């Protein structure tokens, strides 16, 4: 068992739902309600000082329940270790607590996941679409979104919004 897994199991006990360590790529699934607490712990020195938020992505496992997953990719600048934290999200209540107060970089990543998967991040300061245009209906990377579902935009997107 790796140090990160051990310290997370000690601190969060049954909130750690699954752990996979595939060829050194550690991925830990935690209960989605605790994602901000797990993040705060991993950011702290005793949690490994994972100061760098590399990416947040969504995954759609259509047909599975819970249908969605949000994956947080973290890196520690001190130990150069990387870890993935996963949260499973159901289709009926696709909400995850935000981690923008921990990592500023999470802001646009969470907007991207919201835009393309329709997963909302509670407490996010500015949850707007970021890649598709603001007249877009639906969420393009959901597996049941049609591949050729092009939607026209009637006017240029403003570069800056007040």
């Amino acid at each position, binding site marked *: 068992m790796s140090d990160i897994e051990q310290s997370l199991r000690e601190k969060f006990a049954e909130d750690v739902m699954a752990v996979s360590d595939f060829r050194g790529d550690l991925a830990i699934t935690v209960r989605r309600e605790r994602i901000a607490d797990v993040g705060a712990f991993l950011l702290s020195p005793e949690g490994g000082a994972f100061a760098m938020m590399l990416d947040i992505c969504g995954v759609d496992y259509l047909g599975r329940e819970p249908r969605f997953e949000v994956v947080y990719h973290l890196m520690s600048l001190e130990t150069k270790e990387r870890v993935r934290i996963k949260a499973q999200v159901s289709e009926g209540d696709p909400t995850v607590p935000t981690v923008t107060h921990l990592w500023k970089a999470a802001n646009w990543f969470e907007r991207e996941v919201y835009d393309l998967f329709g997963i909302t991040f509670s407490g996010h300061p500015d949850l707007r679409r970021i*890649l*598709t*245009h603001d007249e877009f209906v639906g969420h*393009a990377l959901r597996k049941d*979104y*049609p*591949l*050729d*579902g*092009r*939607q*026209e*935009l*009637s*006017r*240029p*997107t403003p570069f800056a919004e007040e």
Partner: protein
Amino acid sequence: MGIETAIGSPAITTQLDKVVNWARKYSLWPMPFGTACCAIEYMSVVSSHYDLARFGAEVVRFSPRQSDLMLVMGTINTKMVPILKRIYNQMCEPKWVIAVGACACSGGLYNNYSVVQGIDQYIPVDVYVPGCPPTPEGIIHGVLKLWEKIEKESVKDWK
């Protein structure tokens, strides 16, 4: 030779269209609408090795109001379409459009929810240059094809 001998040696008679088209085709001012990798290829077209200046089209203007040739180089997605149309509309006539590369011509590799399947759905295109990306020679060939088109035009065609 007819009227030219009558009025003296410094005069040449010709047709208005021929003179105007001659001037237009040798002084194209491109507006580079570069959105992806094809635009990188265009950089070598205007640089010294391939040197678009040999064909009179080296004065690249980033203001559409000063340009008469729009080069659309790269992937255009639906979010970009209103901007593409606005820039095209800002160019004064006469104006021409070359779609450079598979993406601008047809959507290229990308058949998905966000990519336009050819800019000719939204703005008129005069010359299509195939390739992903086209070679610099290919882009120059596109400009020469546009010359052929300009030669057949008339001043009356444009406002």
